[in-house]
Structure formats: structure tokens, C-alpha cells
């Protein structure tokens, strides 16, 4: 897609072509398209004179830089110990049953991707999940389903 090539060139103009421009460029791409595919990474590598493997290595390091296609809404349910003790497993099952997908999968309509994440820092209000950048706390299975349903028509 020539589109990607042009966009990456613009971003390289904005942030420069040194190695330290890699993160801000990747972050802008993520903001715009939710994930960076091989085409995007190859273009970034070419602009910054890096190898594609180096860009992939950096991108794959960060949980919030997706390198595989994800849905419009990415649900990240906290899997760490406090949320776990407060009933995360029931919440997870409720979400899985509602969306008919397992952790790591995306719905057929490409609307939702379900993931687990490490601690979000909301232990006192667990279980917690993120949907894109929005935090939802003190979840119960019912509350989680309601929240997800509210996203279905967005």
C-alpha cells in the first residue's frame, strides 16, 4: 500500500531518521491503525536504515505495540495476582462466552480482540480491564458483559 509508505515517510520527516525516532514513529502508527503489520515495519526499517528484524524486535518487546492484526477494540484483562484473587477468571469466562473467542483471538467482525495483561496498577479496584485506553474497574461477570455490549454498536 503506497499509503503506508507515504505515511512512514511523513513520520520520518517529523521525527528524524535516527534510531531514536523508531519508538515515536511506531507509536503514531499504532494510534492510527492499532497494529503495525510487516509492510509498515519494512517501511519504517527502510526509512531509518535499520534491518526489518531490528524493528520487529523492538515492536514485539512492547505489549502495546501489536504486530498482528487486532480488532477495533482491544480488551486487556489484568491477569496478575490481585485481580486473579478478586475473581478475574469468572470475568474472563463471561467475556469469552459473550464474544465467542478465547484469549489471543479476534472476533470474526474484527471488532474485538481479547488479551490478558500484566498489572495495570488498579489492584485496589480489581478485577480490572482496559478497552483500548479506557480503564474499567471492580468488574463482575455481569458488569463486564454490560460494558462490552456498550461497545458493540460503536
Amino acid at each position: 500500500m503506497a499509503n503506508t509508505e507515504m505515511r512512514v515517510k511523513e513520520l520520518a520527516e517529523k521525527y528524524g531518521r535516527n534510531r531514536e525516532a523508531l519508538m515515536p514513529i511506531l507509536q503514531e502508527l499504532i494510534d492510527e491503525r492499532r497494529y503495525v503489520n510487516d509492510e509498515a515495519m519494512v517501511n519504517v526499517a527502510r526509512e531509518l536504515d535499520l534491518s526489518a528484524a531490528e524493528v520487529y524486535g523492538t515492536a514485539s518487546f512492547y505489549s502495546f505495540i501489536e504486530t498482528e492484526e487486532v480488532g477495533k477494540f482491544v480488551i486487556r484483562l489484568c491477569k496478575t495476582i490481585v485481580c486473579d484473587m478478586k475473581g478475574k477468571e469468572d470475568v474472563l469466562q463471561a467475556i469469552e462466552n459473550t464474544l465467542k473467542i478465547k484469549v489471543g483471538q479476534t472476533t470474526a467482525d474484527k471488532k474485538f480482540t481479547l488479551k490478558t495483561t500484566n498489572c495495570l496498577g488498579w489492584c485496589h479496584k480489581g478485577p480490572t480491564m482496559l478497552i483500548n485506553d479506557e480503564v474499567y474497574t471492580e468488574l463482575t461477570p455481569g458488569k463486564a458483559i454490560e460494558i462490552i455490549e456498550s461497545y458493540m454498536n460503536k
Partner: protein
Amino acid sequence: MANMINLTINNIPVSVEEGSTILEAARKLSIRIPTLCNHDDLCVAGNCRVCVVEQIGNRTLQAACATPVRENMQILTNSMMVMQARKTIIELLLSEHNADCTKCYKNGNCELQDLSNEYRTGNQIYIDLVPSKHYTIDQSSPSLIKDDSKCIRCQRCVRTCSELQAVSALSAAYKGAGMKISSFYDRPMHEVVCTNCGQCINRCPTGALTERNYIDEVWNAIYDPTKHVVVQTAPAVRVALGEELGYDPGARVTGKLVTALRRLGFDSVLDTDFTADLTIMEEGTELLTRLKKVLVDKDTSAALPMFTSCSPGWIKFIEHTFPELLPHLSTCKSPQQMFGALAKTYYAQKKGINPKDIVSVSIMPCTAKKFEATRPEMRDSGFQDVDYVLTTRELAIMIKQAGIEFMKLDDEDYDRFMGESSGAGVIFGATGGVMEAALRTAYEIVTGREVPFGNLNITPVRGMEGIKEAEVKIENVKPEWSFLEGVTLKVAIAHGLANAKRLMTAIRDGKVQYHFVEIMACPGGCLGGGGQPIPTNLEIRKKRAEAIYAEDENLPIRKSHENPEVLQIYQEFLGEPLSHTSHELLHTHYVPRKRY
């Protein structure tokens, strides 16, 4: 003079230059601190932690490879705390490592194995995590195998591929327990920008990166009575093989190498140096032809500078990275491939053997040669020109398997023909060698006199500097070369692909002008090749280079164009350099590849 820092290690005083590490200070006292991620050729990583030492007064242990010395430091390398921590660190590394040592190709030559042996890590208290790890083995490349189950994530390969080779086909991907050494999207190694140079193999402390070996295939060919098995040996093998078989670095074992190959059962033991000499005839003539086209005919299609084409790692690198510069490459095949093409044509005819019954084996310091032999362009004899490529290390394994006591062997000489070589052919194994050999011949063709350097030793093109330059003024030429009268021939040499990339960028951007450029993919040239004995470092490579030049000085013939077998093959078979037959068998073309 640099500031000196005084400290004690195990209560022994030592003073070292400011900026040295604890590891370096300990070496000065001949105290060995174990290391895994550290490597003399690479930047500090400090990630494996086995080099931890105690600093008195400090609560935590320090990584000796990554901690600079400070005045009055008191270091203990073997205290109770250190020994316990180090053993734990090794045990933790092993808990994620597929320690199937007896089935491992690196069995007996593995730094992790040595260390676990030293620390007697028999009673593992940690759970074996290997079964839960879903490690993969990548056997897609004809040159190398990447087995993640053996990887300890020290990143020597990543640093090698980036710092020495500027390729970065491998990178650290993911994080924490999931961190792994990965190509782009974990694609198979034969699909990515890997040049097959094998420098990562030379530095891998375990069996995670190894050459793809063809030992059994070669044994099968030798055992097959219907096959005539010819073997060729590259110049750099004879100055390094000894290291695998009891000698110190720098030993010249040419005669014993020939004897051993005969005892292994090869039908004919021949020399790649012969085709190195032939390469000089072809490449030298090609250079002079290009010079004439540019200087006399003003032909813009002839690209200058001309680049050497002997190093298959370099070829794949330029195909990926600078496809626009491909016309600059000499069309000459590498000596290995010239040899292969001739073995199944000229040699077969002369010996009266059907080429389909010939198995052509080469012993190379190189893993990229394995890939080169499989290139579709390399079948000009009507067959795959070179059937199997073994590294110096694989040959050493075969010699051991055959129960040959290498050090006790007598010296023997190569078979004839295609076994004669000049000193010029031998120095192909060192960086600058092809350039020196080419100049010895080209200068003499043009002027009728020997190159104006003492004893034919063109010292400006020798040595371990990353990029070297030299100039040779051409004067009093023969009448047919009058267009070169007074021309100063400018040449450059780079070894290691990071240096090659720097030089190519400068050439592409028009910042430098040369007539002829030699590139070798590996540091030091072929003598530091990815198929050479492990370990490697600058000191070892310098010793091998000294051996190469000593070999050259000791040969009666030192110029390619004086090799009688070379003259004979032109008379009997090829005609003249760049003849029709030469073009068919000895020259090739290149394929632009994607860098991304």
C-alpha cells in the same frame, strides 16, 4: 599516558588503565573469570551474569565484564557468595536449555557445557522448563541451523550480525521469559537478509547456531565405489585446521591436510588455490578490459570501480543491500565455483570419467559457500558444480572419526592437475590477498615488470584495518597498454560487512573514487570465515594471516600468471581469459534481492 587505577583481585594488587573492566584486570593477573555473553570482538552486553564477582563493601555482586575498575577496589572472584551465585546462574540457564548434550552437534565444543562441567551442576534444583517452551529449530538454510532450544539469549549472534556485519538478520524479540532471538517475524533464515556468513556460528557459546553439516553425505560418496570423489581445499583451511587437531593458532598444516584427505578416501586431492590463480587471470583481464572501455572507448556501460566477487557472503549482502551497485561486481565466479565447473568438464574429460559419476566436495572456511553451491546459477557443467561443502570444522570431525593421528602424519603434495598453485592463490585467504594477487599479475601484464614492492609483498593492502586504501602508479607501459601510461591505479579493501557497507555507501554517494575494490564478508578475510575453528578473536586471526603470508613466501611461484597448470588449461581448454568457454564456465550473473 593513560591514568592507572590500582585495585586488588583476590588480595593480589594490580594496576590497569582507567576504563578497563574488572574482567580485563583479572586477565592481567591470569585469573580466569568465566564468561558467556562476553566476546573479544563485540561490545559489552552484561546479560548472562556468570562473570559476577564480589566487591568488598558492596552488597550486590557485579558483572566483571561490564564494571569498570575504580581506585582501591577490592574484588573477590571466588568467594563463597560468588561461587554460590554463579552456580545458581548456570543452573537457571540450564533450566531453560535443552541439555541433550550427547545428541548435540556442539558436544565437546560448548562453553555452557564446559561451565556446567566445571561447576558440577548435576543436582539441578530448578524445574526443567524446556518441555513447556515450544522451542523451534530452523533448518531452512543450506548453511546454518538455528535451534532455539539451545539458546541462552546471550545475544552474541545479535551483536555479531549488527556490529561486525551490519546485517541484523537476527534481533532480540519479545521480552521477559518469552524473549527470543528472532529474524523478522520469525521467518525462516533462508527467506531473510541473512548472508550465511556464519560469523554468528563462530561466536555462539552453545549449539544454538551451527553449520548445516554434510559429513554423512560425504562419507556416503566416499564409500560408494561407483563415484569418483574429488576434493578441493580453500587457502584459509590450511592455516586453521591445525587448531582443531592439537596445534596452536598459526600452524601451517598444508601437507598433513593433503595426507589426511587421501587417507579419508578421496579419489583426488586438489587445490582451490589453482582456481584462485585462474580467478586472477579472468578478473585481472576483466579489470583491464573495463579500464580500457572507460578510459579509451568512453563506454559508460562499464562500471568502475570493479568489485571482487569471491566471497559469497558479500555477494548475497550486495544483492540485498546495494542492488543498484551489482554492475560493479566482477562477473567471475568464486574460485570454489570455478573449480566445481572445471571438475565436471575439463577434469572429467582429461581423466575420462563421466561427469555424472563425479562427486565434487570442497573444504571451505566458510558457511556461505554451502549456499553458493546450491545457487541455480552454479550448474554450468550441466550438473550441480559443487556437490557438498564442508567447513574446516567438519573436516576436523571427519579426520577424528577416521582415527587419523593428524599431528603424526607425513606431509604430502596435492594431486595434479588442478593441484598446482602460486603464492598469489594462497593469499586469497587473507583480507587484501585478492587485491595483492591481482596487482602482481595486472601490473606485470601491463608493464612487463614486477610490481614495485619489495619481494612482491604489497604491504599497504595487508593488515587488519577495516578499510584499507592503496595507490599504484603505472609507468613505462607496454605499447598495447599505452592508455594506462601515467595512470595511478586506486584500490580499496574492506573486510567484515559493516566495513563493506561503509565503503559502499561512500562509493554510491560519490565521495570516494577507486578503480578496484576487494570485499571479504568476514573479519580478516576467509581466514576469519564462519566455517573456521572456534574460538576466534583478533589475535588468532592475526596468527592465521602471518601463516598465510609465510606460506606465500615459501612457494616457488608467487604470481598467478606463472602457474604452469593455469597456462596449460588456457592452452588445452579455455583458450584465453574471457574466452567463450571461460564465459560459459567461469563467469556468472547476480540477482537483485530485497533488503526488506
